């Protein structure tokens, strides 16, 4: 039976914040920006009554470096921002990746480039999955498609970050952050926590001093560190998550993540009602990308239509995954515009018609 305390109607941003407290987050450092300010607002209201530290930083640059310091001291830490603010954090994230510090970072993606718009977007996919800052690094990137997943991914993000000693990220968007849905919150204290032995907690006589650094001036050492990171990213492939919807007999596959996947699911339903064998493949981890899992389905499909709220970013990973075996098309809206299910259905139908005509 569901415990009533755990069942709530919440905004995605609030669900994430509440989940973070329940996950035993030690500290949150952040800076306000629409459409994610609810996270900081919720935490500044709740944390003083419960446990942990919350501090409004003077900038996202400061926030991410506070994260570095606190994570380096062995604490469970998190920050969140939206696109322009998340861009400001990139230098710090690169340092965190190199120093191999676990933390959870959230981008509630809004439309860009530039100051852009506060409306939802998926324009930061490249930044999230390909590195973002300088150097060869990745984060473990979860892309929720519901308020429930916004909460669940907080626990999952912390778990993976600490298991692999890397930054984990939730790539959300303004709509998921702002919309209210029923959510079953994870149980408080259900995520085990240990103070890591590598943290700067003060050097006892019994060990050498702990040093947190991203500086490895000898190229041989820097290469060794890089090789270690790459092995870690390889191991991370065992943590790939994805959702399959109506794929068993699908001739036409939609690929989409986050909000776009939710809308695409609706489009699949409409197409199925019309007797068209459509299905959806939704990467839940967008890094690492579920390439083999997608390819497995793609070989049986007549085409893939990738749907995103950007100019076509994940579509590159989709193309790499299917490696020319299946035609890949793209349907996108940009700048804070959200595609409707009808638009997606129409895009699929247009491609089917082109295909049929070419066969005549």
């Amino acid at each position, binding site marked *: 039976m569901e415990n009533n305390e755990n069942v709530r109607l919440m905004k995605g941003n609030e669900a994430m914040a509440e989940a973070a407290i329940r996950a035993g987050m030690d500290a949150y450092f952040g800076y306000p920006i629409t459409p994610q300010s609810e996270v900081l607002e919720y935490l500044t209201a709740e944390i003083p009554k419960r446990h942990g530290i919350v501090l409004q930083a003077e900038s996202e*640059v*400061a926030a991410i*470096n506070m994260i570095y*310091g606190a994570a380096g001291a062995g604490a469970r830490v998190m920050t969140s921002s939206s696109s322009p603010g998340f861009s400001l954090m990139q230098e710090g994230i690169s340092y965190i990746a190199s120093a191999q510090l676990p933390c959870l970072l959230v981008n509630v993606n809004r439309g860009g480039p530039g100051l852009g718009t506060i409306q939802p977007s998926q324009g930061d996919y490249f930044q999230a999955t390909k590195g973002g800052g300088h150097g060869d690094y990745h984060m473990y990137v979860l892309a929720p498609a519901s308020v429930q997943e916004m909460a669940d991914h907080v626990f999952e993000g912390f778990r993976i970050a600490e298991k692999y000693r890397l930054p984990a990220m939730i790539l959300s968007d303004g709509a998921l952050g702002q919309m209210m849905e029923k959510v079953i919150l994870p149980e408080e204290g259900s995520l085990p926590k240990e103070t890591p032995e590598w943290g700067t*907690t*003060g*050097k006892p006589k019994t060990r050498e001093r702990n040093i947190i650094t991203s500086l490895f001036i000898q190229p041989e050492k820097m290469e060794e560190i890089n090789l270690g990171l790459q092995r870690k990213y390889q191991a991370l492939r065992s943590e790939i998550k994805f959702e399959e919807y109506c794929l068993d007999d699908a001739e036409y596959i939609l690929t989409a993540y986050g909000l776009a996947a939710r809308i695409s699911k609706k489009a699949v339903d409409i197409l199925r009602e019309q007797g068209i064998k459509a299905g959806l493949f939704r990467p839940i981890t967008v890094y690492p990308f579920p390439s083999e899992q997608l390819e497995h389905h793609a070989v049986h499909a007549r085409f893939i239509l990738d749907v995103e709220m950007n100019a076509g970013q994940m579509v590159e990973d989709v193309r790499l995954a299917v490696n020319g075996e299946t035609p890949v098309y793209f349907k996108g809206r940009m700048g804070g515009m959200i595609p409707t299910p009808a638009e997606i259905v129409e895009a699929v139908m247009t491609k089917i018609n082109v295909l049929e005509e070419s066969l005549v």
Partner: protein
Amino acid sequence: MEEIFDPVCIDKEAIDSMDVVYDKTPLLTDAPMHYCPGCGHGIAHKMLMEVIAEMGIQEQTIGVAPVGCSVFAYHYMDVDMQEAAHGRACAVATGIKRVRPDKFVFTYQGDGDLAAIGTAETIHAVNRGENILVLFINNAIYGMTGGQMAPTSLQNQVTSTSPYGRDTKFTGAPLKMTELVAHLPGAYYVTRQAVNNVNSVRRLKKAIRTALEYQKDNNGTCFIEVISNCPSGYRMTPLQSMRWIEENMFSVFPLGDIKVPGKGGAVS
């Protein structure tokens, strides 16, 4: 590294029977320092580690190294340390102190790090009264990158990016960060010291001790500026560089306490 410091050729018994008047600082590691001969960084490191050793707080201390010549401070200081991005040491120290409030936390930063790229982090950390020690090494130049102009460079000072002398009308006047932060309520103890002679170094050590003692009581930020030298950046001998800071820097950056507890606000 180990053996060469062992005075094997000397009569050990004779040493033991004498009073030790000078010893290796116990909390400085045996790693050979990369600093240029005569550089003030080595002196500042030594004073900081001597105080930590004398207070017996090695186990409770966490330091933050900057980007600058002292980027490798953690090679030499035998305490847990983190290396921060350029300018962000005060934010990193904030993160550490907030989750480990019972530890002694210090940052060690140059003038480019603290007074240029890290101005915002510095001011806000002090304004929040982060209960840390900020040790600010002002040598009026960017040492690490080869002697470029710093925000603290003096009027007419020749550097590699002010080859005709700093024109303060064009590039701003020497930034007095220490006076600036002294005005903030979060600053508890603010002082400017130097490394130019034995007396200055003794006063510096006393200031560091004072600051770390204050940290025990959660009083707010203690901020110590250290007027230091950069013989390589100035293209001078160590001795010339010490003279240069005495003759040129002290008039712009006067030594002494700027804010002391119980003595009211900032005095300049």
